[in-house]
């Protein structure tokens, strides 16, 4: 059942199923994303979480911060855990073997939603094979990547999501290096190319856009991938109160464009239509420099010898924004 959320006041009627006094850092965007995703529906939710900050800090034995069914799984297999739950659920439903409480909710139209949360390390890198496999097999679940562009939980090592120029503990900036050397991997397109029916990029600061996309994802049948920008006060090194502002700067500079890709397949699995929609267009596209300046992980880029990396950033962001607009226009 799609929950009616016309505006923020109506959204605030939600009863959170994610609890306080978890051990995430003050100001952590992971938490804001999890709240927005869970509150996007009133249906039962089953969550699998990959190892990373979210898992470690919301289930410190003997405590749990989850009021939904929740599975603590490895670093590399959140997608496969969720896919397995999804397959088991479908069999139990077909055979009439759902637990009575679940059966009752399903009869009321409250079909359980199965969600996996993983960090960028657990998604772009280490969990990629299980994620790719689950998407190829077409299980009915949603995968949400909490993308803070670093392995935060183990002290901030670079991942294939870390953008160029970021100083991390394994790509430290200093007298001989400007930090990370590689460009960020295009995970959204990679997941869309699996033929998934719905793939989207979101930011917690644009809560309505996020909630709408999650609701769309819950409505389609098949694997759904949501890439969520997740400002990390500890590794991006901004003040905790600036989490929403930094997120907004990312969106308004088009560093973090908000868009969705919808694939339609026929009964043989052949994709006959792919559509890309940009869901948020900044009124004024701000220079990338402003986004970088708000995060001390990029501080060194403002030294004269590293300025060329900022120019490169702007070029890369402009090219990508151009590419997304061209795809949208062409309807592909």
């Amino acid at each position, binding site marked *: 059942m799609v929950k009616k959320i016309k505006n923020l006041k109506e*959204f605030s009627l939600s009863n959170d199923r994610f609890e306080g*006094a978890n051990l995430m850092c*003050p*100001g952590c965007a992971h938490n*804001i994303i999890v709240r927005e995703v869970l509150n996007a529906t009133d249906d039962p939710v089953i969550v699998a979480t990959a190892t990373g900050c979210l898992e470690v800090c919301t289930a410190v034995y003997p405590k*749990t911060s989850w*009021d939904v069914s929740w599975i603590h799984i490895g670093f590399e297999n959140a997608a496969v855990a969720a896919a397995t739950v999804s397959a088991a659920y479908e069999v139990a439903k077909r055979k009439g073997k759902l637990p009575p409480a679940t059966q009752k909710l399903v009869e009321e139209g409250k079909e359980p939603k199965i969600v996996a949360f993983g960090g960028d390390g657990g998604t772009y890198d280490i969990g990629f094979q299980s994620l790719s496999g689950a998407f190829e097999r077409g299980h009915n679940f949603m995968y949400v990547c909490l993308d803070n562009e670093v392995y935060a939980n183990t002290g901030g090592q670079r991942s294939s999501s870390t953008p160029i120029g970021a100083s991390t503990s394994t790509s430290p900036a200093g007298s001989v290096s400007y930090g990370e050397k590689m460009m960020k991997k295009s995970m959204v397109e990679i997941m869309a190319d699996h033929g998934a029916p719905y793939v989207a990029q979101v930011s917690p600061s644009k809560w309505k856009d996020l909630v709408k996309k999650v609701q769309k994802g819950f409505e389609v049948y098949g694997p759904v991938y949501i890439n969520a920008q997740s400002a990390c006060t500890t590794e991006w090194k901004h003040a905790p109160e600036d989490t*929403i502002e930094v997120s907004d700067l990312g969106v308004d500079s088009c560093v973090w464009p908000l868009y969705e890709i919808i694939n339609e397949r026929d009964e043989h699995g052949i994709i006959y239509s792919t559509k890309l929609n940009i869901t948020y267009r900044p009124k004024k596209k701000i220079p990338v420099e402003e986004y970088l300046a708000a995060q001390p992980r990029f501080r060194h880029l403002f030294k004269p010898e590293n300025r060329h990396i900022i120019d490169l950033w702007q070029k890369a962001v402009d090219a990508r924004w151009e590419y997304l607009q061209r795809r949208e226009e062409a309807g592909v």
Partner: protein
Amino acid sequence: MAKDLKEIKDVNEIKDLGWDELIPGAALFSFTEPVEDVVEVPMEERPYAPTNSHEWQVGDWRVEKPVYNRDLCIDCQFCWVFCPDMSILSRDKKMIGVIYEHCKGCGICVEVCPTNPKSLLMFPEHTDNAQALAMWPKKEEKK
């Protein structure tokens, strides 16, 4: 003798136990009894188990706390949606206050509050709330 989690009814009993005094288990319970549809039950009415972090507190992480001024608030709910720690209490579309047991003092709610002056402001942790309200700043002129 190690204790079984299921037999513990009071959160303070767990807090006093060492890690080796609990029988290790794979499942943690959120509630002391089955809740049919948790999304329909507001926080105040949930039968939280001592193993639910809701029963614990992180308020002592703070050095500054947000203080809420009802007189200025327009109930926009920005603070509610962006609080990472479920610490803004809103009921019937109205903002009611801060849950100090769970608030980590990040200051996001203050940053996103749109009123002038703000309806939420950070004060040193030891400040008395009534005192904080008495020294609330006046409206700031637009620069």
